[in-house]
């Protein structure tokens, strides 16, 4: 499996979606930690290292972009791959975010698990490369 030993932090407030993403990522060999909001995500990042953060954009209290901004200011996380899941891909200036926050990719909802896995692999590969 491609994702051996790579750790992914999943931030998603919708438990149903979180569940199915977990299921697919785990099957692909990734080590997934699922949290349901930005604050929990920051706590998880403070406790351990992750290769990639997969975050929903629209969440109560802290949006995915705000989370990304926060993470970039944390020591040791300036380069962590960050993928944004969003229902409003069209309204976001992805190129600008990529430049400003080092966003790896933005995946529009609804997406297929295959798409998600491909995006994750590409993001990780570009970081390694």
């Amino acid at each position, binding site marked *: 499996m491609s994702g051996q030993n790579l750790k992914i932090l999943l931030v998603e407030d919708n438990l149903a979606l979180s569940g*199915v993403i977990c299921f697919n990522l785990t099957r692909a060999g990734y080590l997934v930690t699922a949290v349901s909001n930005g604050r929990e995500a920051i706590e998880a990042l403070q406790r351990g290292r992750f290769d990639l953060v997969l975050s929903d954009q629209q969440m109560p209290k802290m949006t995915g972009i705000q989370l990304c901004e926060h993470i970039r200011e944390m020591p040791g996380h300036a380069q962590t791959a960050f993928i944004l899941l969003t*229902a*409003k891909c069209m309204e976001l200036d992805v190129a600008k975010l990529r430049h400003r926050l080092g966003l790896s990719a933005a995946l529009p909802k*609804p997406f297929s698990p295959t798409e998600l896995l491909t995006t994750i692999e590409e993001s990780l590969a570009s970081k390694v490369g």
Partner: protein
Amino acid sequence: MFTTTFQLRLPRRVTAYFLLFGLTAVVWLSASAFYVAREVNQDRSESTSLRWLGRATSRAALDYLRNGASELQPLVVQLKSQSGADYVAVRSKTGVYLAHSSPELVGQMADEHEGTTDEWGDVVRVHYVDSQGEMVDEYQAPLNAGGTTVGTLIYGVAQPDLWGYVRSAARHAPLAVFGPACCMLVGAVLLNRMVRPVADIAQQLSRVAMSPSVEGCELRQVPAVGAAAMGWNRVVTERAGRGQAEDLGQKIQQSLQTGRQGRLDGVLNSIPDGVATTDAAGRLTYTNLPMAAILGMKDIVGATDTGPGSEPAPQMTSLLIEGWHLSSNDALLSADNQHRPVVAELSRIEDGQRRVVRVARHPICIVGGVQHESHVWIIRDVTQQKLAEEMRDSFVDTATHELRTPLANIKAYAETLALADVIDVEQQKQFLNTINSEATRLARFVDDLLSVSSMEVGSLTLNRQTTELRRMLNEVLAKVKPQVEEKRLSFEVSIPEKMPEPSIDKDKIATVLINLLGNAVKYTPAGGRVAFRVHAADHNLEIDVEDTGVGIAEDELPKVFDKFFRSDDPRVQEQEGTGLGLALVQEVVRLHGGRVSVESEIDKGSTFQIVLPIG
């Protein structure tokens, strides 16, 4: 053709008029002189004198025969007054005056005059110079009475001299002078009228010549007589038209001060939008009351305020920069935009509330499309509109989320099921259940959307049918029960034993109750209490939904039934919601002829009450 043929140039016209009236006056005067001369000469001419002499002789002879010499005196006096003679007398054969028009000479010896003598038969004319140096013709004729000569009739006529002419002229003066004077007067008036506009124009032009700038000179119209005047007036009108744009503020102010003052003033001050005009320097030339209020000015600006001596009116843009945080790179301040309409939105915080205004600036165009540096400004308060727009935007946001989330789940689960080769049956079942519940959620949201869309166009209609209330209420309670249990809330239900069977739209009322109960459960923390009480009165059905939830802040209470409204309370924001539920509740209850009310205290809980007529 006629008019063009007779349009002579001004100098020629002036000359023609001058000649015409001058000539008329000269002719008139000449005629008068001729008349005077004729009159003067006629009375003293030879033939007249002889005729009078003959007449006098025969009358004197007759009187003499009838009354004797004593009656001759009245006759001579009468004859002198009737004729043009200077004296009339009768001289006896002895040379004594028997009668004389100057009575003091009667009885005296008659003078013998030296001079040239003409004789026609027995009539003699002596031409002599009298003691005053006056030329006199004296006609003498023998006075025969009854065949004997009793004396000589003397008829003396002073020959016309300068003085005679003067006297006669003086007598005819009124007619002789009045006519020409009238001619001259009429001519003078006509010439004056003809030349006055030209003189006016010349005067204004000389002012222009001496003034430093042509634009600064005030030009005025002249009486529209003649082509020059009409042309000049046209120039002045068009120039005034050009100046009109800059003067708009002044014009408004002037018209406010005269005539329809109250009306225009009232109109401009009654419209809720702020209206202002600025001149080329961007200074205010007029503001109406709302504009003054928006700009925070103490008083409105009128043209009179910008007169010399008073301090210059403030600049519109600097007021906006100070009061409305107009940024220095705004399109309103760009020089490129001076000649095109510009619209900007500005906002500031007033008493803790955000206030948004839309500022539109248009260059003032006059007829013919010529543009000037002056502008008209319109400022509209769009705070409410902005709030509505924001509510709608936030709804679109919510709706997108509400639609995409279940779709994303369904797609993810379905694909996972399709792709994953090894997956146990229990897990498959769980996945399918999730897909099912997500599809239900999607369907419910679409229903809500459709209802709201019907509400928007006013086409939400009721499908009334006789309803078993108890059964319907039980269905409703069954739907909310799982959520109540999940949150471990205490749930009080009070439904009377005996229930009416009213004619209502069962599905919609059920939705209303599910919405109210759903909200109560959603916004009540775990361990709280939710109460559902139904009370059937004679004509009304009262339903209370009470909770011990987060409550509604006092300022938000009037807005809870507004479409798309969602509380700013973070405890509410945390929960998913569309802001449509209570709007739908209100609309459905209203369509049933009932009413919905709410009482709430923040942090304590809320009570919604529905009263439905069931008569």
